[in-house]
């Protein structure tokens, strides 16, 4: 017990200005090994996490992405120590921490609703963790100033949380969690209570702060834009199951299954059966009798049926007869920066096309016939 407490010392040598290029092979910050969490028992048991295994690297901006109720908060809470895992192992820099109590984990949390101490000033909130760590008073003062400057809140040091706006409280919550320079910072939808403009500005700031401090961020969101724009890597979850871990590009361009493809961005799915031996490319025949070439890198060898996946912005429109197939424009949605078109190509599901405001695109109206180009490189067979 005691050696555990000392070896997971929450102390960190230098708080803010750790150089980023302290390179070498990326260390593993957090390692999840078949982590399971069941709430309650008997008939009311809820399996919130099922055999979750993945690694998070040191200095990484890592995002947990998934729909409401998929277990993101639960996973974060097991990392912070607020919940016990039902099974599995969590390692922090190689050390098993499942039995280490919250207050001995070198991990801090930015809570969704900030949870600032209402009876303490901003400065006292930020100093709270440092005081518990028994840092010398002048060091505490220095770090608090530094943190408040980092989040641009130095003018508000003597205010109480109730006297701050939501965005300001959010910054204080961030400063408070960063002040003890944790090895890992956990953020549970920290931007969700902010309005759109502020949220977008805070994305940039969070990302910069992460780069400057070099602290591993584990960021929870159900907003795919947030995840794609901020993360080094993303873990997509659904109903307690891990779906995919990868960089934003991997997740967006090469989703491993229909869930990920559909959750991260818009997607067209075309159901088909496989009509040729599976190689790098494969020929598929759709229900409507269309023969399509598709990327088969994720197909398994014995597979007979397939779901083909295609992002709307990867579909091109052309003159009737010049594309892969002809279709009829059913509906047009103007979105400002792009236009979404629903095109009936004689399949059970129509194809959604996203066109950026390109002047060279032919203008069309509902009812027009157009050629639809389904690029074999962009069309992917999803794993079953």
């Amino acid at each position, binding site marked *: 017990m005691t050696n555990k407490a000392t070896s997971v010392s929450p102390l960190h040598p230098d708080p803010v200005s750790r150089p980023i290029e302290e390179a070498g092979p990326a260390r593993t910050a957090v390692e999840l090994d078949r982590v399971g969490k069941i709430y309650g028992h008997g008939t009311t048991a809820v399996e919130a996490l099922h055999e979750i295994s993945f690694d998070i690297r040191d200095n990484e901006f890592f995002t947990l992405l998934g729909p409401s109720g998929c277990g993101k908060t639960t996973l974060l809470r097991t990392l912070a120590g607020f919940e016990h895992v039902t099974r599995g192992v969590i390692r922090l820099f190689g050390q098993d921490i499942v039995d280490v109590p919250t207050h001995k984990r070198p991990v801090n949390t930015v809570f969704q609703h900030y949870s600032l101490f209402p*009876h303490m000033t901003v400065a006292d909130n930020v100093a709270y963790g440092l005081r518990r760590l028994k840092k010398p008073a002048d060091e505490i003062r220095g770090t608090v100033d530094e943190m408040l400057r980092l989040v641009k809140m130095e003018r508000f040091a003597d205010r109480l949380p109730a006297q701050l706006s939501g965005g300001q409280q959010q910054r204080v919550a961030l400063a408070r969690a960063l002040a003890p320079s944790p090895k890992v910072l956990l953020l549970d939808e920290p931007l969700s209570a902010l309005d759109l403009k502020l949220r977008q500005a805070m994305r940039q700031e969070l990302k910069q702060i992460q780069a400057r401090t070099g602290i591993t961020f584990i960021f929870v969101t159900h907003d795919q834009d947030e995840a794609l724009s901020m993360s080094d890597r993303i873990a997509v979850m659904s109903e307690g199951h891990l779906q995919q871990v990868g960089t934003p590009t991997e997740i967006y361009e090469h989703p491993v299954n229909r869930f990920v493809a559909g959750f991260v961005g818009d997607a067209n799915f075309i159901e088909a059966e496989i009509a040729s031996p599976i190689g790098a490319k494969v020929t598929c025949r759709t229900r409507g009798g269309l023969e399509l070439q598709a990327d088969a890198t994720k197909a398994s060898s014995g597979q007979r049926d397939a779901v083909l996946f295609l992002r709307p912005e990867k579909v091109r429109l052309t003159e009737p007869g010049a594309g892969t197939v002809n279709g009829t424009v059913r509906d047009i949605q103007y979105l400002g920066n792009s236009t979404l078109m629903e095109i009936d190509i004689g399949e059970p599901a129509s194809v959604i096309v996203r066109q950026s405001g390109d002047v060279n695109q032919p203008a069309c109206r509902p009812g027009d016939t157009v050629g639809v180009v389904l690029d074999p490189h962009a069309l992917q067979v999803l794993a079953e």
Partner: protein
Amino acid sequence: MIANLPDSPVLRRSLALAPALIIIGVFMLIPMVVMAIFSFLEAKSFGGVVWNFSGSAYIQLLYERMLDDSLRLSPGYLIIIARSFLLAFVAMVCCLIVGFPVAYFISRQPIQHRNMWVLLITIPFWTNQLVRTFAWIIILGRNGVIEAPFRFAGLLGADETLGLMYSDFAITVGLTYTFIPLMVLPIYASLEKLDFSLVEAAADLYSSRWEAFSKVIIPLAKPGIIAGCLLVFIPSLGAFIQPDLLGGGKKLMLGTLVQFQFSTARNWPFGSAIAMILLAFVMLFLILYARAARNAKAMDLH
């Protein structure tokens, strides 16, 4: 015919308030004024007052009149006042020590169970105080629930007693028992409002359980703690059933003293004077409380 209501809003408002004002006036102000006046009159030998202005009731609190009409400082009543404060304070502390964990426990129960717990806490409060206090005689008294096993085991002879009854201890137990719901309820009210994620935040920021308790829970429960302490301390200070029954009339407190003056001693002015002094202390505490509450409100303006 219906009388015309006055048009002036001020008048109308005072009319609307009239029932409340009359009740406060008749049942509170007038008796208090009577008491205040009585405390400055002379006592009639067998109860009642003689309408002569006199400060003798207040003098009697501090001095004893000797046979030659000279005054000698006499600490007897001061000791009773001091004992009242001491016992009320100890009862308040006991209520806090027992009541806080109870309130905390209730506030951590699933929301649908909390009202049931609150009800359980308050049920004794709805039964007669006298009956409940007598129950303690059965528990603490000679051959009571506590002594009986000792006697049975031969640890206590036939004439011996543990001496639990008719002591400061018994009074404190009685006061604590009687007023504990008044401690639990306000603390529960403030703990129930407490966002538990603050406690998680404290633990997350390296607070041990004790530190989370002392740095976060206690400060945020403070309004409830202060209210609870007052609600226990004030009635304990003036209590007379518990000191009378459990103190056996030997251990006087302010409340018993007042009662004694009006019944046995037939010294109404003196009884009134003691009551006024008690009232003065209560007012003092309430003013201090109002101050504290105002400061607390200034802290979390939402």
